């Protein structure tokens, strides 16, 4: 029994020691949020978030493990201290800051738009009256739809991921969806989906930020901001965006 306890203690200490490296961080992210993070045809985990984080880490000289946990789990992991920060195309909102989250400077400004079937007659928000609209939980697209819901009298159905949301529009379960414009445009083009972005449906957009929950990790946010400014200055940032958003 004593031996077992000793072994557990030693293992616990090893684990603690591993976690305590000064310049090593665990960063959580979503599983699929194309083109910010996704697994490409070769099985590599890539995307704008992934590349920006890599460029900033190189610039600032820290190392990290990127864990693709999924949106909900990434949030929980930061709160629990299982991860130091998260980069998952998370919009910087007041409600999130009020809950104690700390965001970096915005690293990408996304506008949102409404998308319908290519042969749909829906041309404005008013045409949505009484019809179901698909959104993805937690996105700015969802927030945009929520802001239009009451004035235009449509209902909202929440899905967990983008593919299911598109499927709901293509299958006819919902008549429209709201998504970030660059993502929507890229997905329609790349996969040849029978969808179209409704003209004039774009909003002003909001910035995405890198987020931490534990205020002790403020230095990570500081490094992120400094690194972001540097890669914007040296052209690396534009290179990454060009690579994913042709």
């Amino acid at each position: 029994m004593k031996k077992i306890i000793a072994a557990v203690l030693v293992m616990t200490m090893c684990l603690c020691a591993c976690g305590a490296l000064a310049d090593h961080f665990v960063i959580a992210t979503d599983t699929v949020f194309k083109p910010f993070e996704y697994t490409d045809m070769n099985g590599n985990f890539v995307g704008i978030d992934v590349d920006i984080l890599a460029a900033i880490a190189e610039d600032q000289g820290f190392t990290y493990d990127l864990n693709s946990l999924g949106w909900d789990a990434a949030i929980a992991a930061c709160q629990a201290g299982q991860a130091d920060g998260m980069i998952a195309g998370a919009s910087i909102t007041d409600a999130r800051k009020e809950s104690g989250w700390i965001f970096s400077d915005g690293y990408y400004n996304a506008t949102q738009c409404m998308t319908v079937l290519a042969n749909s007659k829906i041309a404005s928000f008013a045409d949505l009256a009484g019809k179901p609209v698909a959104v993805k939980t937690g996105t700015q697209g969802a927030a945009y739809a929520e802001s239009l819901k009451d004035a235009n009298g449509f209902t909202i159905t929440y899905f967990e991921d983008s593919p299911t949301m598109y499927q709901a529009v293509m299958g006819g379960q919902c008549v429209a969806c709201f998504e970030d414009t660059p993502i929507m445009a890229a997905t329609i083009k790349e996969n040849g989906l029978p969808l179209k972005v409704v003209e004039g449906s774009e909003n002003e957009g909001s910035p995405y930020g890198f987020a931490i929950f534990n205020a002790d990790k403020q230095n990570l946010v500081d490094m992120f901001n400094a690194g972001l400014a540097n890669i914007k200055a040296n052209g690396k940032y534009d290179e990454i965006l060009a690579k994913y958003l042709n």
Partner: protein
Amino acid sequence: MLRILDIYGNLLLTAMGQTLLLALCGLFFACIIGLIVGLMSVVKNKLCNFIAVVFVDLIRGVPMIVLAYFIYFGVPYLLNTIMGLGGVMLTALQAGTICLALNCGAYMAEIIRAGIESVDRGQMEAARSVGLPYWRAMQRVVLPQAIRTMIPSIINQFIITLKDTSILSVIGFPELVNTAKNVVANTFMSFQTWAIVAVMYLAVITLLSRFAKSMERRLKHGH
């Protein structure tokens, strides 16, 4: 925690209502399916037995999340695009109800089959030998005894089905888990939200269990 209850309390309560609605719809049809398939598997008819076995194996062999995607997206696609019917559409509630009814129905069928088979064969033989027809014997002699042994398993299955409604969050039905994910996404307060949700499920299921226990007691002590 209080902030979430303050802002999202009503939303979460509405979602609990949706969860209960879905569970009730699902259980209602599950009972019908379970009874029919359960009886089909005990009657002396090879075709009925075969259909019952295939149904139970098919439904039990597919995870409910797959069934949910298949019914919500697959069935309309099959009917409209492949069979060219056009205009067939299932709401999330309809698809969810079908999904729960099929899934829970398959397990109920097994519970009912096991319950009937647990009654000694002699009971049926004795009833038949005094001149009762098969169905009358089943109804008056076998089923009343079988139901008593089935009740705890059926209640257990009800509770499992109530919790299984959470799986239908994937097809966008606004039940408790789907709504809670939204609250988490808006506030980024993961633990507080899930703690509230856990307590809500616990409260409802505890009430259901208590109610079921008293029902069980009443049935055990005659009618």
